[in-house]
């Protein structure tokens, strides 16, 4: 028995066996392409996270995707006003499966200090969120911690998550309809 990171393998003369699901999950986890949806100061912290000092590219994430079609991870960093809400939902729907959402900072998680008529009180009111990063704004270390938790999810979740009834039900609660390929209609 051998090991590649967290992956159990069976090693022999000239071959190595493992579980295909887990190998795919490992590959996915180490090449997550993020779409930064940054609207305010948390976005600045995220820029520091991307920069050379903290260097998010150590985790296979150097390729920021500014098109939702080629993104796996939606990073929402900053205050989302109610007017921006439908735009964010549209971006989420345009992302192809598999996809995850990281909510960075107090505003994205709960509206933060902006307890006011114009601000969405947490992005989980319009899209499902996988990992919440608290803080106002969170330091880059905290954002990396959130990203690590996303990686854990990617490694542990079923590769066929999109076909599960739970997933359909979850998206249904957000009024997001999906087709037979698990993509939002």
């Amino acid at each position, binding site marked *: 028995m051998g090991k590649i990171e967290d992956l159990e393998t069976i090693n022999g003369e000239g071959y190595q066996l493992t579980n295909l699901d887990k190998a795919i999950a490992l590959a996915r986890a180490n090449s997550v392409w993020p779409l930064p949806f940054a609207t305010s100061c948390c976005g600045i912290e995220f820029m520091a996270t991307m920069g050379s000092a903290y260097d998010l590219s150590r985790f296979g994430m150097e390729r920021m995707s500014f098109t939702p079609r080629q993104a796996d991870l939606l990073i929402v960093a900053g205050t989302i*006003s*109610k*007017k921006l809400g439908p735009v964010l939902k549209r971006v989420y729907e345009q992302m192809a499966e598999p996809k995850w959402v990281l909510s960075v900072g107090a505003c994205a998680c709960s509206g933060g200090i902006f*307890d*006011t008529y*114009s601000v969405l*009180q947490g992005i989980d009111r319009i899209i499902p969120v996988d990992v919440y990063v608290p803080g106002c704004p969170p330091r880059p270390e905290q954002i990396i911690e959130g990203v690590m938790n996303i990686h854990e999810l990617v490694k542990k979740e079923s590769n066929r998550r999109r076909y599960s009834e739970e997933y359909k039900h979850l998206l249904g609660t957000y009024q997001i309809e999906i087709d037979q390929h698990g993509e939002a209609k």
Partner: protein
Amino acid sequence: MEKQNNQEYLTAVQAAFGADVLAHEEAFGMLNIEMTPSRIHDAIQWLQQHQDLSVNYLTNIAGVHYPEAVGREFAVVYQLHSWKNNLRLRIKGFLPKENLHIATITDLFAGANWMERETYDFFGIIFDGHPDLRRILNMDDMDYFPMRKEYVLEDATREDKDDRFFGRNNNEL
């Protein structure tokens, strides 16, 4: 030519508009003139076209809500600027809440377009003759005017905010 000062502006406006100048004061060195709302458009046009006064720039249009002032609940405030005389002045018009109509000045200053939309968006003041008077900052399906003081500032859908941490007393909401 000598540069004009506040007093000269006031005298000129009073001479031209007489009884429509309802009140005036100088606040922090800036001239404030309250006028009959229906005459504000003409007054601004006159100030803009006047050779010496030359009020050529519209800085801002704002609304104010005074819920206690019966019959004059809403104010529309025009902040104007004369580059030639390096002088700023405010023109105010007070409207009763039953009739929130005032003439647009988009024909005088193109920049008034968005400012009037904003004032409409937050206070519901209707600028008659505006080419496209609809909400500009708030979401389109908002069904009230949020800067009016009868509405609470807080979001009605909030669930996890503890008022004590926002410096507010629960009983006040």
